[in-house]
């Protein structure tokens, strides 16, 4: 979802002056068209796959393909990608599954040939450790910082105000609103924002 952003074919600002044409009308983003010709499958010509009796269903292929990405398709899962390269890759997945390979083997064979950007979870041990480890570290740090805040203030409170102890807190507990009137009163107190 999101930000509207077309691979805007502004004729002047194609990368790096590759495009030279001499009339406005000719300045169609021809390289975009070309890319479509060679990359995007023209679905008109692709009849549905019929009668492949290899024991592999479309769903098997989807199961593997939805964990993969094609390296030139700007972050579109292979499963949802309709470029010729992707169709070719899906056919290869089907062939490998038909040969009896497991999902993981198939995926690893692509990773071995194309690198970690063809899967949504890196397979390389170092990258994998970084993928998993850093967010855990971040979470630990965030919670650690919160706990540190409490502890520091907690110690501070004990040092400066020895009266604040469990006993007084229990006292506060006795005050808990048992009746609706008390509850309402608490809401009103809250509203006043006792600063």
């Amino acid at each position, binding site marked *: 979802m999101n930000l509207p952003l077309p691979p805007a074919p502004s004729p002047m600002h194609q*990368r*790096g002056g*590759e495009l030279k044409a001499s009339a406005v009308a000719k300045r169609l983003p021809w*390289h975009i068209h*070309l*890319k479509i*010709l*060679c*990359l995007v499958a023209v679905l008109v010509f692709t009849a549905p796959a019929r009668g492949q009796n290899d024991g592999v269903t479309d769903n098997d292929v989807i199961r593997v393909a939805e964990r993969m990405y*094609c*390296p*030139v398709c700007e972050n579109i899962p292979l499963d949802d990608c309709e470029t*010729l*390269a992707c*169709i*070719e*890759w899906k*056919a*290869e997945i089907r*062939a490998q599954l038909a040969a009896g390979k497991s999902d993981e083997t198939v995926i690893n064979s692509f990773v071995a*040939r*194309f*690198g970690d950007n063809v899967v949504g979870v890196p397979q390389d041990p170092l990258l994998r450790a970084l993928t998993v480890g850093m967010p855990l570290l971040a979470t630990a740090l965030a919670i650690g910082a919160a706990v540190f805040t409490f502890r520091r203030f907690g110690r*501070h*409170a004990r040092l*400066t*105000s020895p*009266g*604040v102890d469990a006993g*007084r*807190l229990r*006292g*506060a507990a006795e*005050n808990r609103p048992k009746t609706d009137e008390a509850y309402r*009163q*608490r809401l009103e*107190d809250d509203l006043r924002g*006792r600063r």
Partner: protein
Amino acid sequence: MAQSDQLEFLPREETAARRGFSLGSLALLAAVLALALALGAQLSRRQATRPASGPAPDFQLTRFEGGEVRLSDFRGRVVLINFWASWCPPCRDEAPDLQALYHDYHDAGFSVIGVNMLESSRQKALDYLAEFGISYPNGEDVGERVTRLYRVEAPPESFLIDRRGKTRRFYIGGIRYDDLSGSIERLLAEAS
């Protein structure tokens, strides 16, 4: 609630006001700068365009039949680096022309290096080479290294390199014999 009001009221320790920044603050500010620098480096990588002029980046490719092919080994010759895939229709269109050009100009000092990209299986690539009787060196771009080096987006794309190893022309899409032969002849006529 009155009672809890009292126990919230905690006197605080007075500390003298200080000036400047603490060490932690400086580290934080340095981290912002470091992040900005990393983003800048990444952005300039992303914004880099195909090396369509200037020295052609060197690379090494393992040929399908074994052995290495290295761009710098062709210094002194005119080289066309052709990125292709067996599933790409314009590649199939241009393949006979490329082979014919290679055949006609090879002895005059022209070479083609085929870089096979995004191929689904090695067998398909071999079938393709056999189908078009391609005899110039070809190899699979394992890990998409060359593709990335040349920032190729989709096959076919080709780079024409002169005798001194500089990229002179860049082609996107299929090439015809006649489009290329003139350029090749011109570059062959240059001194190395």
